[in-house]
């Protein structure tokens, strides 16, 4: 097998020279690549190729009907959404029949990709388990033996459906039904890959589990499906990262992630989204938190063309707590439309949203959030803080906070700021010998610090490096 690194589209490379993940591999040896376009046949074929039970095929086909019927959202960035050509996308691509348990079992060119992305190295250093998805399916999977012994299940979703069908059937689509929104329907129809995590009662997984998602093919659609169940009193930290080659035409990433935090459990879900700038990233993420459970979405959006993503937490049980801590970075041609939803159903529930965004070179960021407290949710506490930093006059930031509080005695705080990188801050740092670029990077890193400090050290270092790369050559 010959692995070749082809150079990506030169124009885009020049425009986004700092995106170092824009390379792609030859795909001569792929097992299967569906023709472009979405049909009942394709959906049926995906299900058959995976030897799925009948109920899943039915679920998929129902979802397809919903997807086809539902209109495109008329909010967010309608213009960009309308540009998606659903007929120009490969909905299922199987790069290899093999799922390696050892990197040596993974086909050479795919292994090379993940080597370049630093995944095996990260795994050796500080991860308890890894799944690596390449195109539509997971090509590598590992979990530490001691976790297996404690009953922790960490599998790709396809394998989980085969090996733990009852559990998957019990929870699949219960948090995010296919009719939730057009893209949740699309995902349910053509889902493939993603992670399944089950942490048994009382088990604390102290070291993070990581999933890495890589798109390689042009005009690819990646639709992973993730379900995490934390049983009573358990803890898990799940991290996902994603990148794609830079192409001149668009790809689509539309995931569905469902989290279930049973009483007293704690789930932290960290995302570093760094898609290339030709990827639509339209993701539905929702968690339910039962009594005294805690859910945290730590959500970093650096890449993609258009991201629309609003991680939600439904606080179902007394004393449940939810946090969304997100950053968004939008450069030229990018729109990060992100936010959070906290829905309080029970008394004494609390939530915190911190959103930080940076727009530069005409990039656009939007915060869109909801705080909702239903009758009976007494003594709710919620605080929302949105800070936007504009790097130049051409960039844009908007905030759309919604509060619907149907219960008295709630404590709700909301604070929003928009600022510009100040001449005086730059002057102060430059008077200490930092170049304008270094000074800007320091200000930006400081702005993102509340987010960065929540990441494992290795990721924090990587994120700061990514930000520095995004700042290069950008300061005139």
């Amino acid at each position: 097998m010959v692995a070749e690194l082809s150079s990506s589209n030169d124009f885009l490379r020049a425009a986004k020279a700092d995106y170092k993940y824009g390379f792609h591999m030859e795909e001569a040896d792929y097992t299967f690549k569906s023709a472009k376009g979405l049909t009942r046949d394709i959906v049926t074929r995906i299900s058959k190729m995976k030897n799925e039970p009948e109920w899943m095929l039915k679920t998929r086909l129902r979802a397809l009907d919903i997807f086809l019927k539902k209109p495109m959202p008329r909010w967010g960035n309608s213009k960009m959404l309308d540009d998606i050509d659903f007929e120009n996308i490969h909905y299922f691509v199987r790069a290899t029949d093999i799922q390696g348990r050892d990197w040596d079992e993974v086909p050479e060119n795919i292994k090379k990709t993940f080597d370049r992305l630093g995944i095996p190295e990260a795994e050796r250093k500080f991860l308890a388990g890894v799944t690596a998805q390449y195109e539509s399916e997971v090509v590598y999977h590992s979990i530490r033996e001691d976790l297996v012994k404690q009953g922790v299940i960490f599998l790709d979703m396809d394998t989980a459906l085969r090996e733990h069908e009852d559990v998957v059937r019990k929870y699949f689509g219960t948090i995010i039904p296919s009719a939730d929104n057009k893209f949740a329907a699309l995902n349910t129809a053509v889902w493939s890959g993603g992670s399944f995590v089950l942490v048994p009662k009382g088990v604390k997984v102290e070291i993070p589990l990581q999933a890495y998602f890589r798109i390689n093919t042009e005009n690819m659609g990646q639709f992973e499906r993730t379900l995490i169940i934390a049983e009573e009193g358990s803890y898990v930290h799940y991290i996902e990262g994603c990148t794609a080659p830079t192409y001149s035409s668009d790809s689509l990433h539309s995931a569905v992630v469902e989290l279930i935090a049973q009483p007293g459990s704690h789930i932290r879900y960290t995302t570093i989204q760094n898609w290339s700038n030709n990827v639509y990233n339209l993701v539905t993420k929702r968690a339910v938190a039962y009594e005294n459970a805690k859910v945290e979405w730590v959500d970093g959006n650096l890449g993609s063309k258009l991201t629309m993503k609003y991680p939600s937490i439904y606080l179902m049980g007394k004393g449940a707590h939810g946090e969304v801590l997100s950053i968004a970075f939008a450069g030229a041609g990018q729109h990060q439309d992100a936010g959070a939803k906290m829905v309080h159903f029970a008394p004494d529930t609390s939530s915190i949203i911190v959103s930080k965004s940076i727009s530069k070179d005409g990039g656009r960021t939007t915060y869109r959030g909801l705080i909702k407290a239903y009758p009976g949710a007494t003594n709710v506490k919620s605080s929302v803080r949105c800070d936007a930093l504009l790097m130049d006059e051409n960039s844009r930031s908007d905030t759309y906070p919604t509060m619907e509080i149907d219960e008295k005695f709630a404590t709700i705080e909301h604070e929003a700021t928009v600022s510009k990188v100040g001449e005086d801050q730059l002057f102060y740092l430059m008077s200490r010998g930092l170049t304008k670029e270094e000074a800007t990077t320091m200000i930006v890193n400081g702005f993102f610090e509340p987010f960065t400090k929540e990441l494992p050290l290795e990721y924090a270092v990587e994120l700061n490096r990514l930000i520095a790369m995004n700042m290069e050559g950008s300061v005139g």
Partner: protein
Amino acid sequence: MATKAILEIRNLHVAVDGKEILKGVDLTVNAGEVHALMGRNGSGKSTLSYTLMGHPRYEVTEGEVFYHGQNLLELTTDERSRAGMYLAFQYPVAIPGVSVSNFLRTTVKGRRGGDLPVKEFRKELKQLMANLSIKDEFLSRYVNDGFSGGEKKKLEILQMALLKPELALLDETDSGLDIDALRTVAEGINTLKTADRAILLITHYQRMLDYVTPNFVHVMQGGRIVKSGDSDLARELEAHGYDQIAPELAGSAL
């Protein structure tokens, strides 16, 4: 005393937003010298310090400035810093999210070049902090964010001690300090007084000059230096006020 000129300012005119603030400043500072620049608010003292450090809002409309014989006005702010200039700000700027320790390490590393051995740097830093009566917890706070006036001034002096500039411009470093802090800060400044360095102290008041003795004192008014003398001039000013010392200019100019 050495007579090598570090800074030469000739007929410097500076405008901010089109309004002329400096109207022909001449000043030469030689190695080994401490100069005090005194004057009322609005006399142009801070404008001079910002201009020398290259703030983009301060436009030089006429005149020349040489630093070690080199045209200073051609250099960007960071180049001036790396050439050995330092400005202790009257109003230091907050950089939220950036810890003092990270900030100091980054700036000192940038200045000294190459690797900065962590252990040695830490040792040096701890010593300087002890000299300035700065507590350890200071390092994990964000740069000037929520600092008291005195804390800000101490951080300016700490940075100066680490960066060891050849030409230090101290803009109202004494303001907002209580007497103990003033003494501590003055000691910090005095350790920088060596034969190959120079200091330009900008101040309203005599009190700093009780601790840092200047070789020359200049009085600024209406965008010009109107009177120069030795350290006695500062005491005269303290005793008699600006009106008597430079009566011909009182209330005019600006």
